[in-house]
């Protein structure tokens, strides 16, 4: 039984076709351009667009995936908290920033002592531990102070509170550490060289490896331990979870803690890749990670990670592939627009996200 289509449906269909059409056209033109660099269309729409070599393309893709791994790690926190409490914790980007900030302070201290250079991996592990601890504690404190007293309020109240929390943390950082951009010490020299047969920068490999390990650890926690089972039970029905003997409050704290830890890891990876941090570092990655969580299907952890990788890759590769062949000048500056366009595109076609599932509305009998 279908409801009759309304004007809105037609408009949405039109948008879907437009987006798919533009994407297809962009990709086609990109391929044509790769094969015949000097074709008519290219000469007509964008005479300065350069032919992209395979290694340039790979470089873009790898840096996009690296960035995407960070988005994915942050997205996990959004998704998990949404899963158990049903609201978007907009202060989560700030939890990430807190990790990046304390990591910066710790690494500079180590650098001053000369340990950063001589024992890079050891220092990295230490800095990682500091950042993870800070982010975890920040997330736990946030839950206790701001969200727990509002547990039974409408979700909207929690959402607004999280926006307030976000401003609070940003401004606290501004007051404590100042507005100037601060930077991480240079990563060890050997990380900047290219590694092995795949010929990818070492630092990027390191970022992807750390992100991958963290994601696997989280997967193990959620799928293979009692704590994870408790989290999933609370996410679905807290009252019945309590009936199973699960400590609901403690489980919710654990969810915040684990989400915070992942954001802390992402903070350090950010520092390794981009080196500079400010009090507003958490904002854009936070929004993009939130988009990644929605894109993957909010509440679905694999979806959050995949969403992060897709958004990261798309914003890095997308401008060159879609916009430059279409004749847009300075297309790389459109990377943020591409990230959100991908989100809009996916939601137009799959409103519940890539992995978001919809259960039958009521019990079948």
């Amino acid at each position, binding site marked *: 039984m279908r409801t009759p289509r309304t004007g809105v449906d037609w408009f949405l269909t039109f948008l879907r076709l437009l987006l798919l059409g533009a994407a297809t056209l962009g990709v086609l033109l990109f391929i044509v351009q790769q094969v015949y660099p000097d074709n008519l269309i290219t000469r007509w729409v964008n005479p300065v667009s350069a032919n992209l070599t395979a290694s340039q393309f790979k470089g873009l893709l790898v840096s996009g995936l690296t960035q995407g791994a960070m988005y994915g790690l942050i997205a996990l926190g959004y998704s998990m908290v949404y899963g158990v409490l049903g609201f978007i914790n907009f202060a989560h980007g700030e939890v990430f920033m807190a990790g990046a900030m304390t990591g910066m302070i710790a690494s500079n201290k180590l650098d001053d002592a000369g340990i950063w250079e001589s024992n890079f991996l050891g220092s990295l592990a230490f800095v990682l531990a500091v950042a993870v601890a800070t982010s975890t504690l920040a997330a736990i404190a946030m839950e206790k102070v701001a969200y727990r007293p509002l547990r039974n309020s409408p979700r909207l109240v929690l959402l607004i509170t999280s926006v307030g929390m976000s401003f609070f943390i940003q401004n606290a950082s501004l007051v404590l550490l100042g507005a100037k951009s601060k930077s991480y010490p240079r990563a060890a020299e050997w990380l900047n060289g290219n590694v092995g047969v795949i010929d990818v920068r070492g630092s990027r490999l390191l970022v992807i490896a750390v992100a991958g390990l963290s994601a696997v650890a989280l997967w193990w926690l959620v799928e293979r331990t009692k704590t994870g089972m408790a989290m999933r039970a609370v996410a679905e029905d807290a009252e019945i979870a309590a009936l*199973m003997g699960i400590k609901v409050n403690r489980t919710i704290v654990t969810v915040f803690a684990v989400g915070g830890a992942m954001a802390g890891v992402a903070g350090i990876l950010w520092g390794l890749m981009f080196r500079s941090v400010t009090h507003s570092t958490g904002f854009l990655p936070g929004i993009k990670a939130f988009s990644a969580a929605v894109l993957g299907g909010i509440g679905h952890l694999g979806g959050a990670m995949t969403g992060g990788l897709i958004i990261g890759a798309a914003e890095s590769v997308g401008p060159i592939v879609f916009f430059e062949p279409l004749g847009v000048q300075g297309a790389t500056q459109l990377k943020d627009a591409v990230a959100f366009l991908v989100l809009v595109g996916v939601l137009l076609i799959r409103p519940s996200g890539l992995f978001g599932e919809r259960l039958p509305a009521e019990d079948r009998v």
Partner: protein
Amino acid sequence: MRSPTAKRPEQSSPEQPEQSSPEQPLLEMRSVNTHYGAVHVLRNVDLAIYKGELVCLLGGNASGKSTTLKTLLGMVKPTSGDVLIDGEVVTSTSIRYRVLKGLTMVPENRRLFKRLTVKKNLALGAFLRSDNAAIVNDLEWVFELFPRLKQRLNQKAGTLSGGEQQMVAIGRALMSKPRILLMDEPSMGLSPALVKQNFDLIQQIHASGITVFMVEQNANLALSIADRGWVLQTGQVVLDDTAGNLLAHPELRASYLGDT
């Protein structure tokens, strides 16, 4: 159908010796009053359930039946009065503590974890247990009671039929190795054939040594298998008698059993 020979694994419970005297109820409510905000739901309710009994609580809509169960389990705190397990006052303890004491419930409308597999649902029933070997035995017992669940093990609970979901709900409760099983409206939302099966099953679970306390609207069926029963009316116990006497009670026949 279920094999009638399904036996519950031997209760090896040295921690629960038969120290309770016959007069000591397993589960008891002493003049409990419960409020939801300003609404006075339970009024001076007294209940006593003894080991090995199969008892039922009857009553119409909004008479306070579900609240009685929730108060017994600690999901709702009474405003006055006490809940006792084995004579121990547990009024202010957590649900978790009471589950550890051997209480469990099959909630109204089953309330499964629909996005989790049947296997995970059953494992969650045994959440507080760490006696792995015994858990495996109890799982086997659940499969004996519900052979169909074995094929559905890796399916998400939300995709099962209503009858199968009921099996998972009961199985999940049994996995906590309860001494007393509370059932909230076990016949709700089931077809007449399934209701009959369900009541057979309750008797079977009872026969395996688990005390059963059910809340039902279907008074006829409930009283046909129960030993004793109470009738609750606007939060007050108005009748407290053996099942036989209740079935014959003229007032009850008129108001609950559909006689005119």
